[in-house]
Structures are given as structure tokens and as C-alpha cells.
């Protein structure tokens, strides 16, 4: 389950679940992502690591349509995300198309971003009711199940301010899952937590990976977790993928000097 032998991304017959094709992102003069090509297969778990400013968070944010792209195209499950097909050609996606495609993607944020004026249960019910049109009872049932799955079945009526950081992040995971996305994005989800609270969140992610057929992209600093959990690791540096490969091989034998330097520095910091 952890290591796969046929490791070339996109080698399967099925189209990749996520494809970045020549994607570029600029902030003024600064090129954050430089003509990025990245394929993620269905059910694949990819860990994205790298120094800050390397563009890794931008990759997730663009996939979640929180940022626009300047060049290139992003595809999700065979359909274009950032563009749409009009008369055989690709044009920039309009808001309706974006909204439709966005439903395939879910995201968990570094700072949780739970809705503070709603209980844990309501947080998980809101979008299914408002966006998916579920009835109140259906949404409540789904939310209850998910919150139990992340170990918070007894905290349904708690407000975020009454929960620890680890608990809040688990609610955030349940909230994102309630929308039944095909792709789950995790943006440094343990970076804002006290070290002893990381374990409970990582354990939930591990369970997710085992029991649900989700495609997962994770930006993380947790190298140990990435090594053990991810199928593939991508090392980003200055807006490009410097090196990538199956997790175990990547960590055991990093090829590039920069990768080795980075991994050494991160391991020393622990």
C-alpha cells in the first residue's frame, strides 16, 4: 500500500486525476511557479515538500481555485479546471464552470478556518445543506458520522473556541470530507499545532488514506509521516519540481545536492 513499483506518474492507462500542464504563476516580477508539469494519479498520495517560497502552497491554492494561474492549464479527472471547452478550444473558465469543478476538491488549511459562530456539527452541515442541497437530517447524519470517524463524536455541540487545535483541525477534515470530494488537499495542516497534538491529526489522515479512495496532495514538513504514508514525494525549489520519486527511495537516496541539503536541515531541526 505504501510503495508502488510502477512509479512513473501517469503511466497507467487511466488519465491522471490531477494534471498541471505548463502552469505558471507570477506575483508582479516574482515567478512563484515556473511552467509546472505535475500528474497525480487517482488514489495516489503525494507529499509536497520544500523551503518556503518554493511555490508548494501555491500549487494547492491554485487547485482549490483560491488563486488564478497566469499560464498553462490545470485538469481534474479529465476535465479542465481553470479553463473550459468552447467550440473545440479552451477559454478561461467562467464562475459557473469554476463552481462546478470546485466540487471535486476539498481543502484543509493550516489555520483550520473553522466558522467560529457555528458548532462543530453545524460547521460540517453548512456546505452540504447550502451547496449540495441535502436536507437538514441528511446533513446532520453525514456530519455526525464523519465527526465520529475523526474521533469527535462527543464534541458535536462544541464551538471551535472550546476545542483544542488538534480537535479543530480534525473538525476541519470532517468538514471538507462532508462534501465528498475526489481530491483532498492538506496545506501544512500540522504546522500550527503544538507538537503533541500533531499525532491525532496525522492518525486521522492515515485512516483516511487507508479506508477511503481519495487522491491526496499534502504540503508538509512532517518528513517522517511523508516517508511512511505518501506514495510519492515531490521536492519543490524556486517554483519547480527539483526532484520527485517514490517516498521510501526519495528519502533513502535523494539524488540532487539541494534536496540532500534541505533534508539534512529539516532533520536537524527536529
Amino acid at each position, binding site marked *: 500500500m505504501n510503495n508502488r513499483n510502477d512509479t512513473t506518474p501517469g503511466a497507467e492507462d487511466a488519465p491522471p486525476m490531477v494534471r498541471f500542464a505548463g502552469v505558471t504563476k507570477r506575483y508582479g516580477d516574482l515567478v512563484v511557479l515556473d511552467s509546472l508539469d505535475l500528474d497525480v494519479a487517482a488514489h495516489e498520495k503525494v507529499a509536497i515538500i520544500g523551503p518556503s517560497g518554493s511555490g508548494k502552497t501555491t500549487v494547492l491554492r491554485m487547485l482549490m481555485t483560491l488563486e488564478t494561474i497566469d499560464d498553462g492549464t490545470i485538469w481534474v479527472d479529465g476535465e479542465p479546471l481553470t479553463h473550459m471547452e468552447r467550440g473545440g478550444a479552451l477559454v478561461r473558465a467562467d464562475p459557473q464552470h469554476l463552481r462546478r469543478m470546485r466540487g471535486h476538491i476539498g*481543502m484543509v488549511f493550516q489555520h483550520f478556518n473553522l466558522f467560529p459562530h457555528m458548532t462543530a456539527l453545524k460547521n460540517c452541515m453548512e456546505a452540504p445543506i447550502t451547496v449540495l442541497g441535502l436536507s437538514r437530517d441528511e446533513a446532520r447524519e453525514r456530519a455526525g458520522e464523519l465527526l465520529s470517524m475523526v474521533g469527535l463524536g462527543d464534541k458535536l455541540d462544541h464551538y471551535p*473556541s472550546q476545542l483544542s487545535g488538534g480537535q479543530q483541525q480534525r473538525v*476541519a477534515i470532517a468538514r471538507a470530507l462532508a462534501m465528498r470530494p475526489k481530491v483532498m488537499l492538506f496545506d501544512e495542516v500540522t504546522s500550527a499545532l503544538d507538537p503533541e497534538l500533531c499525532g491525532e491529526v496525522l492518525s486521522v489522515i492515515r485512516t483516511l488514506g487507508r479506508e477511503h479512495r481519495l487522491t491526496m496532495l499534502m504540503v508538509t514538513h512532517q518528513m517522517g509521516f511523508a516517508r511512511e504514508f505518501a506514495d510519492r514525494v515531490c521536492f519543490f525549489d524556486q517554483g519547480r519540481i527539483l526532484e520527485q520519486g517514490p517516498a521510501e527511495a526519495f528519502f533513502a537516496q535523494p539524488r540532487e545536492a539541494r534536496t540532500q541539503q534541505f533534508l539534512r536541515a529539516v532533520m536537524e531541526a527536529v
Partner: protein
Amino acid sequence: MPPKLTLALVAGTLAFAAGLYVASLTPLGDLIPELLRGAQVTAVVALGGSLFALAMALLAGLTRLYGPAPLRWLAFAYIETFRGTSALVQLFWLFFVLPHFGITLAPMAVGIMALGLNVGAYGAEVVRGAIGSVAQGQWEAATALNLSRAQTLRRIVLPQAFVAMIPPWGNLLIELLKATSLVSLITLSDLAFKAQQLNQNTLRTVEIFGSVLLVYLAMSLLITAGMRSLERRASRGLRRGKVA
């Protein structure tokens, strides 16, 4: 009603009645009915003006943020004009100049409208600021959950902005209360008018103006207390406490 609230209301009413009785025994006694009538008019103008101001603030603030371009500009013009000119000038303009355009309103209506438009312009900026103060992460989380902008505003952002709005609105409402004294200058018999009138009739200047100032002070404190309790109730889940 919770028992504590009932008790507070009963105690407050008794204290007020007792205070009135005691005051009526003092040399101020004969002035009190007149002053109360004036205070009533002040309260009506303040209440009407507040509601109008709230409506204008929401309308102008939201339009300024999310409306189509021409309406946005209109909201901007309204806000800048009424914030940039004097409340008294606005009041006089509506009172003296509108009739020339064929619109003749009762002084009460003019007063409420002028105050509502004036405070509403400041309120629009409060609304804008409060919506802006909601963390960007909330918008992003809502986007990630695929809520539309309207849904996000209605269900996520405005409820949080509402709490942020309460303290500045409290200040604005006190400003509005003080501004009601201006309507005495367009012949409304409010508290300020009564003060002037009684002073000219009886020349008991210190007593009259002293008590009038105290009444305004009392009304201000009432507003402040009301806003504080509103804020407490509205921020139930939002207590910005430390996360463990």
C-alpha cells in the same frame, strides 16, 4: 424571561419612579412634566433616526462593497457627501430648501431623515470595516467548501461582522442621540427646545440646563449598557479566547 432580567427591570422601573417622585418634591418639580415631554420627543427622533441610519448603512455599505459599478459610485457619493458636510447644514438644507422643490415634510420627518442620512453614512463605513475585519481564511474556507459569494456573505461573514460592528455602532448611536438636540432648531419640541423655552420663561438657567444634561447623560449610558449586553449575547461562540 430569565429571573435576573425580570428583577433588573422591576428594580429599574421602581428606581426611576422613585427618582421622579423625589425630583418632583424639589424646586425642579414643576419643570419635570415639561422636560419629560421634551425627552419623549427626543427619544422618538433618536429611535426613528437610528432605524433609518441602520437601514441606510447596510444598504450603502453593502452596495459600496458588492454592487454593480454605477450603484457603487452612487453609494460612495452618498457616503462622502453626508460624512463630509455638517449635520446642521444637512438638517437646515432639508428643512429650508426641500420645500422649494415641492417636497414639504413635517419637522419630525425632516429631523429623522436628516439624522438617519448623516449617521447612516458613517454607519456605512462601519459596516464596510466590519466586513473587512472578518479573517480572509473564512472566505477561503467557504470557497473550499464551494459556497457562493452570496451564501458566504449571508451565512459566514455577516454573522461575524455583526459582532465586530456593535462597539462602533454604539458610539454612532450616542452621536445620533446628541445630534437630536439639533432638531430643536427646526421647531421640534424636543428636550433641547424645552430647555431653551423654560430658560427663557423662568430664567432658572443652572437647574434647567443642569438637569437636561443629566437626562442626556442617562440616555447615553442606557445606550452604552444596551450595546454591551447585545455584544455579550451576540459573541456567544465567537469568544476570541486562546486555543489550547
